[in-house]
């Protein structure tokens, strides 16, 4: 018998599925929800926290209403993905990883969304936009800004 009692093993993928569920509902992982999930899954909170902090899909901070992922995959990068990021940072007045003051957008980079033939590419929430040029970005942002009005 192990000296330190081992936590019961979970069904495959159960822990990640739980974290995805919370993330889908709140857009991030609130502490109270993590505590509930730890109780529900019968795992230590520390395990949940350490797992959640390992993966880039999860955040412990509230996010903007829309998340913009700027692809920095190889094909996007060599076709100007870095300039798309520069332009968005200047338009939104935030750096990658930050949320705009009006809480509308969170700007993130991602290493490849798998639309390499369309590079450079950004993804806003579930929508992917390809064959971008910096001068096409304002029209895309406007679409989301107008939804709020």
């Amino acid at each position, binding site marked *: 018998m192990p000296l330190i009692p081992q936590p019961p*093993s*979970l*069904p*495959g*993928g*159960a*822990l*990640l*599925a739980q*974290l*995805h569920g919370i993330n889908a509902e709140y857009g991030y992982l609130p502490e109270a929800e993590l505590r509930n999930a730890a109780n529900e899954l019968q*795992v230590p909170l520390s*395990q949940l926290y*350490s*797992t959640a902090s*390992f*993966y*880039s*899909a*999860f955040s412990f901070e509230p996010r903007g209403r829309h998340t913009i992922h700027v692809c*920095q*995959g*190889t*094909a*996007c*990068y*060599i*076709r*100007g993905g*870095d*300039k798309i990021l*520069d*332009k968005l*940072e*200047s*338009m939104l007045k935030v750096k990658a990883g930050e949320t705009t003051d009006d809480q509308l957008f969170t700007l993130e980079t*991602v*290493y*490849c*969304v*798998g*639309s*390499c*033939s*369309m*590079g450079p*590419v950004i993804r806003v929430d*579930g*929508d*992917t*936009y*390809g*064959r971008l*040029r*910096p*001068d096409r970005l304002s029209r895309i942002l406007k679409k989301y800004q107008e939804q709020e009005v």
Partner: protein
Amino acid sequence: MKVRTHSDLETLRAKGISTLYPPRPKISVGMATCGRAAGATAVYDALRDEADARGLDLALVATGCIGYCQQEPLVDVRVPGQARVLYARVTPDRARELIAALATGELPAEGALAVIPDRNQVFQKKPGFLEGVPLLDELPFYSRQRKIILRNCGLIDPTSIEEYIARDGYQSLARALLELAPQEVIDEVLHSGLRGRGGAGFPTGRKWQICHDAPGQPKYVICNGDEGDPGAYMDRTVLESDPYSVIEGLTIAGYGIGAHQGYVYVRDEYPLAVERVTQAVARANELGLLGKDILGSGFDFNITIVRGAGAFVCGEETALISSIEGGLGEPRPRPPFPAISGLWGQPTVINNVKTLATVSAIISRGADWYASIGVEGNAGTVVFSLVGKVANTGLVEVPLGLTLREMIESIGGGGLDGKAVKAVQTGGPSGGCLPARLFDLPISYETLTEAGSIMGSGGMVVMDEDTCMVDVARYFLAFTMAESCGKCTPCREGTRYMHEILTRIVEGKGTPKDLELLEEIALWVKAASLCGLGQTAPNPVLSTLRYFRDEYEAHVTDKRCPAGVCRALIQLIIQPDLCTGCGLCQRECPVGAISGEKKEPHVINQELCMHCRICYDVCPVGAIEIVR
């Protein structure tokens, strides 16, 4: 309904044929992620609305990706009794015109890329039918391709198991379960010569045999769909466009090794793939093609889908296992290999998406058929995502043994905008950059490794004269540094140091001594890292040092970036005699460094300029010069 017999499969096949080739006009829109990124959703909506407005009775289907992404949005139109006609770069306006043409019964030749003959039908293009439009296989992009893994992609409705079955789907599973013993299934895969398409190229049959022979129950099979290499999207396409081919392959693998539980681990960045596989597993369960006593054979098999959460290292098999178990996605030393001790310490086979999609083609057609494709020791086909600075981007499946030149020049159509191709990068962050003078190399696991790159899972990024190879190396090291899980020191610290040195070099602060230091650290990281991520992370550095040392030397000695990319080493100026004063660059400059009166030459404030080159890209008259 539960599928119990061959005749049940035939019933589904008939249903699939009736939707594949309906007695009314049918329009299929390529709506995998790449198609959507090109605007396919708006095209689909326009087709639907226009058809509704005209009261036209037609079948409108969202299909997957046919591979020629350069030409997206792609729409194919089939009039009963005729071949499918594929239209390229379709806009919503163009979509409405197509509906109007369809209403008159006459398809336009304009915008038609190719004609796709219906499968299993002897097709001869009728004289006069779309004069001058080639058959799909006659296009340079397709003529050298041989589709096995991508056999259904873009041709069927990915949500229809009936259409999958109509194109010979589940014949392999039926043969395996009803005619072959598990050992015979393994032998078939072994004799086919199939090697793991995830990149390492380990013989699939041998892996299955080891797991089959390993003591211990239960056993598990896992499909690795954690395609993390930036610049690669083969697995996404297969999962989105033909999910049943993977599920069938996984079920066969389970039967071969004696596992009753399978997992499909899909990358978080691929939401549509997750959706498609989830839907396919549910449907297969409904029909009894998963679950208890499949096809009345007594074999039980279930599949659980696990969605990753954004960690590149989870593509490494031991890290992936840990991630499924609910832990951190950290690798562990091998041996023991997962085939002996994997998920929860049990014997586990992990196969790539493309490997499993191949298995579901091999069992029904036989090992000899597969072994006859490709070259000695490298049987079969591989899929590459041909992207970057190449004229024809897309997904390409070719027999092994084709040369890089055939890939890039014949299929890819050469450089983008007619520019000279300088290098090709294969294998993602684990691979290397090969120079144009090596393009006559045939593509095989061994040749690419000897040349300093790797086959990898299939990323093939073409680079031209405007790509800086030092910056590319820095880019990859930034990637591996960020994605290193941090468990072992050589990878965690080594990638950081290499990135630091490369950053110094691209900023013009490097010295010739840095090149030696870089090489030395690279060799240490390669030798001493725990898992594949660290062991291969130096490849982009070592291969560029080997083939593009002159570019490194220009950076450290002359403080010059020959490609005009590295921001600290270039200056942007507006040539007053060319500038028309249109103001576009002024509007697009992210830092407000450009000023000037309308219709007068503009100037760039060098103090403010961040050298991003957006002005260079947007200038309609080419008035911006990069001083290097």
